[in-house]
């Protein structure tokens, strides 16, 4: 059976060149970078080389890159660390309602320790309006955090327009670029941000290696204390092989990003059109143009997401679902809720994220397999039955 992996937003496979770069650092060059002996120095050199490559990917200097263990850690570090280190200037923070929970939950935690947070809505395509950011700013505002692109619906936010406002007002601006880095150009200078999170396993690097860019001169409070690593900002012995892998993945991404955009967007468009031609009552979520090239988020009326996911899995196709039933809370995605997706159809959502390993034949296969699954589930659905009866009654 063909296997088609369409869940690259969940994670990507480690690129063979990345794996090759990592292998010497498990038991060969195994040293602790903090040690002064040669074995330690070799490891230190490898980490610093990885830092330079990682910095280059986002247009930063190596000294502005702090390695972390995950995108979630980078986001926690940014939000809490920047807020706490700058709280003498004010205690108000602005975020969007569609941020990842690794921003929203730290924001809630900060609220409990005396900060106030404004949660900005988006329009129905998931865009934050820069004017809303400007209007939300008060004398007390110290930090804005708006994601570069949303991880579910793929909408790319107007970061440059927002950073113009924050820079004018002298307010720190962090962006969560976990969904974008490696897939579209990410440059801290062009974006005009003071801090930026990204994660290696999102772009063919290993899990457990991520980074936070913090602009030179910006104060940030460590969240993991007790060591001199990462310039004293993040304690803990470095995950040397993973960081080497992150560096290699960053190097590959920098060279390939244009090609990745072209390749995946063309396959994504083919998939979108193929499904639109074959399936009725389907909604494409996110912005039609300002969207990640490899992202397709679709809601199907009258069917539930997890059932589609399970049937696709039986055909060798891996996707994600945004259905309430998959979450512990039985609530549909906060992102779809924010963009105003009807809660009933939100539960029939599939997130398909493409990658460089997908072929045109893979997409043809999905276009062949998904429509009958949707139809089969609709024939089993009381909601579809009701709709069809209404249709018939109206036709009479």
């Amino acid at each position, binding site marked *: 059976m063909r296997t088609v992996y369409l869940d690259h937003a969940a994670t990507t496979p480690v690129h063979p060149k990345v794996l090759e770069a990592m292998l010497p650092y498990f038991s060969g060059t195994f040293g602790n970078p903090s040690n002064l002996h040669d074995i330690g120095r070799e490891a230190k050199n490898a980490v610093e080389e990885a830092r330079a490559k990682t910095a280059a990917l986002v247009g930063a200097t190596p000294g502005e890159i702090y390695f972390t263990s995950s995108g979630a850690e980078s986001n926690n570090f940014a939000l809490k660390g920047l807020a706490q280190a700058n709280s003498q200037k004010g205690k108000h923070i602005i975020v969007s309602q569609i941020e990842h929970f690794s921003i929203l939950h730290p924001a809630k935690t900060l609220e409990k320790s005396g900060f106030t947070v404004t949660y900005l809505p988006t329009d129905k395509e998931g865009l934050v309006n820069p004017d809303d950011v400007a209007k939300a700013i008060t004398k007390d505002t110290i930090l804005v955090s708006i994601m570069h692109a949303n991880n579910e619906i793929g909408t790319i936010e107007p970061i440059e327009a927002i950073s113009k406002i924050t820079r004018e007002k002298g307010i720190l601006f962090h962006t969560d670029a976990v969904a974008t880095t490696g897939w579209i150009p990410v440059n801290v200078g062009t974006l005009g941000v003071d801090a930026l999170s990204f994660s290696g396993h999102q772009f063919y690097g290993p899990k457990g290696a991520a980074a936070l860019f913090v602009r030179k001169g910006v104060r940030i409070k460590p969240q993991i204390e007790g060591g001199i690593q990462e310039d004293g900002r993040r304690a803990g012995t470095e995950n040397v092989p993973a960081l080497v892998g992150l560096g290699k993945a960053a190097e590959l991404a920098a060279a390939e990003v244009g090609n990745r955009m072209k390749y995946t967007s063309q396959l994504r468009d083919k998939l979108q059109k193929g499904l639109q031609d074959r399936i009725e009552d389907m909604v494409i979520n996110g912005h039609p143009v300002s969207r990640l090239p490899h992202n397709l988020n679709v809601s199907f009326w009258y069917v*539930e997401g997890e*059932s589609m996911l399970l049937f696709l899995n039986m055909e060798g196709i891996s996707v994600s679902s945004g259905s309430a*039933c998959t979450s*512990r*809370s039985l609530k549909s995605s906060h992102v779809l809720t924010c963009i105003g997706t009807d*809660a009933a159809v939100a539960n029939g959502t599939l997130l398909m994220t493409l990658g460089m390993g997908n072929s045109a034949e893979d997409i043809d296969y999905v276009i062949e397999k998904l429509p009958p699954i949707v139809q089969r589930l609709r024939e089993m659905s*009381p*909601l579809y039955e009701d709709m069809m009866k209404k249709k018939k009654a109206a036709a009479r």
Partner: protein
Amino acid sequence: MEQYSSKVMDHFAHPHNVGEIENADGVGTVGNPVCGDVMRLYIKVDNNVITDAKFKTFGCGAAIATSSMVTDLVKGKSIDEALKISNAAVAEALGGLPKVKMHCSVLAEEALKSALDDYYKKKGVASPVKMPAESGHEHDME
């Protein structure tokens, strides 16, 4: 999330008794599309015995599997026996359900009770059916 048992996957992939019953003696629809599951159960009753049961379900793998199982369990049973079918019995017959999916078995019990309630109403007889109070939905967690 915990994985589904092979029995759940089997009932999900090949559900029994899918469809509608024309002129059913009882029909029950429970659940809410907002929460992700809606179940509709049809029953045919002859001489106090449920001779046929069919279902339509909008929902996850567990919702479809519990619907399939409850229709299997109820067929051939007397109404009194059917009233005793609990959500736990449905879950057990499926080899267990992940904790977060137990509400699907509650929904299956509710759908059955709602169909039986409808049966009494159609007959013009006072219904002895007690609906389960707690559907196990937690709305305030993330």
